[in-house]
């Protein structure tokens, strides 16, 4: 009887210097400034600020939790998964759109106050909570679901690895609205479909199993559609999933052109 020899896992290559004692996490002090707005109290927004002692492993979301749980329970923000999956907590941190749960405090300049504001371009409801309904309305309009013609296949709908790869990037969207709310065109004209709707249309337009690409291209050929994009690249920079948003928009533009011209 012989058993296969199982290779032992190699030892960790990371060498923690002698100065790092096990389990010890460095702490530092930060100033957190949060843009507050409560229409039931005042029509004016204002800044509130707190001094907090945080750990090197903490994220902006942990700082917000600390404030909400230990200092001021009225601070309002959305979050659900706390791990960059659900897309609830996109906010403007030091002037850039990011997920609070994916932004480590130590990566920000902790010598200055850390500014946290709601994402721009959508109506603020309270503190960091914005009305996402216009955003989802545009998302619904591009029909983000598989549409096919003909009969159900008797097997699963087959697709080659290359065909799957064609739209892989845009499958990663978590609908956080960081892109749409970073777009200067959307800031002044909320009727623009916005990058997120185009990204999610791209995901189906270039899916070989889907048959409604033409309909989606027609929807995005609107005067508030892809042609409003000015290739500013704010969206690509904001996307917490690293989606090449501007590239996806260009590919949709290209698809509309080659279909029409």
């Amino acid at each position: 009887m012989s058993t296969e020899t199982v290779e032992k896992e190699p030892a960790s290559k990371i060498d923690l210097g002698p100065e790092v004692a096990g389990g010890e996490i460095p702490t530092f002090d930060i100033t957190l400034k949060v843009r507050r707005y409560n229409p039931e109290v005042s029509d004016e927004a204002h800044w509130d600020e707190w001094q907090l002692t945080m750990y090197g492993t903490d994220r902006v979301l942990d700082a917000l939790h600390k404030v909400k749980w230990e200092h001021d329970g009225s601070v309002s923000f959305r979050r659900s998964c706390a791990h960059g999956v659900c897309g609830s907590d996109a906010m403007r941190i030091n002037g850039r759109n990011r997920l609070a749960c994916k932004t480590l405090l130590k990566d920000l300049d902790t010598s200055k106050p850390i500014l946290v504001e709601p994402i721009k371009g959508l109506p603020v409801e309270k503190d960091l909570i914005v009305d996402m309904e216009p955003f989802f309305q545009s998302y619904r309009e591009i029909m983000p679901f598989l549409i096919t013609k003909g009969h159900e296949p008797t097997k699963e709908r087959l697709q080659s690895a290359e065909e799957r790869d064609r739209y892989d990037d845009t499958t990663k969207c978590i609908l956080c609205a960081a892109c749409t709310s970073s777009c200067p065109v959307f800031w002044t004209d909320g009727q623009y479909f916005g990058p997120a709707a185009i990204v999610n249309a791209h995901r189906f337009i270039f899916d070989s199993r889907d048959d409604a690409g033409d309909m989606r291209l027609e929807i995005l050929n609107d005067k508030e559609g892809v042609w409003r994009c000015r290739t500013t690249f704010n969206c690509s920079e904001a996307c917490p999933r690293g989606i090449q948003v501007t590239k996806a928009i260009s590919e949709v533009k290209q698809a509309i052109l080659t279909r029409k011209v």
Partner: protein
Amino acid sequence: MATPTIDSPRSGRVSPGYSRTSSSRGNFEMIAWLFMRLSGAILVVLIFVHLYINLVAGDGITGIDFGFVAGKWADPFWQVWDLTLLWLSMLHGTNGIRVIINDYADKNSTRMWLKGVLYTATVVIVVLGTLVIFTFDPCPVIDGVAHVADYCPAP
């Protein structure tokens, strides 16, 4: 006491500023987008040849005077060249400003006013420019006096 009814805050309500109301004007925006790129590519050639001929070639900038312009416009080749340059750059520039107005004005009335001024200016400049290129007379006769330069045919 009757319980006050509160509208469900999530009952499909979209703030009015966000709903797309006006219908799309066919392929206009697509054509405009394409035009910006095509005219841009042509403008590169038109503009740089224009700059080279006027400012570098021959006597350079010191050679530019009434006679230089008159000489160029006596040639149908440069008439067509300058006409194309005028029309393409005006339409290209106008559409560029139209897009900027759409991007930055946030009231529909502001948009309308700014575009009104823009389109009026464009029409005036294009019409005036076209007229000048075609009706330009290098040897005008003013009040019966011929302004003859050395390049004019003898009267």
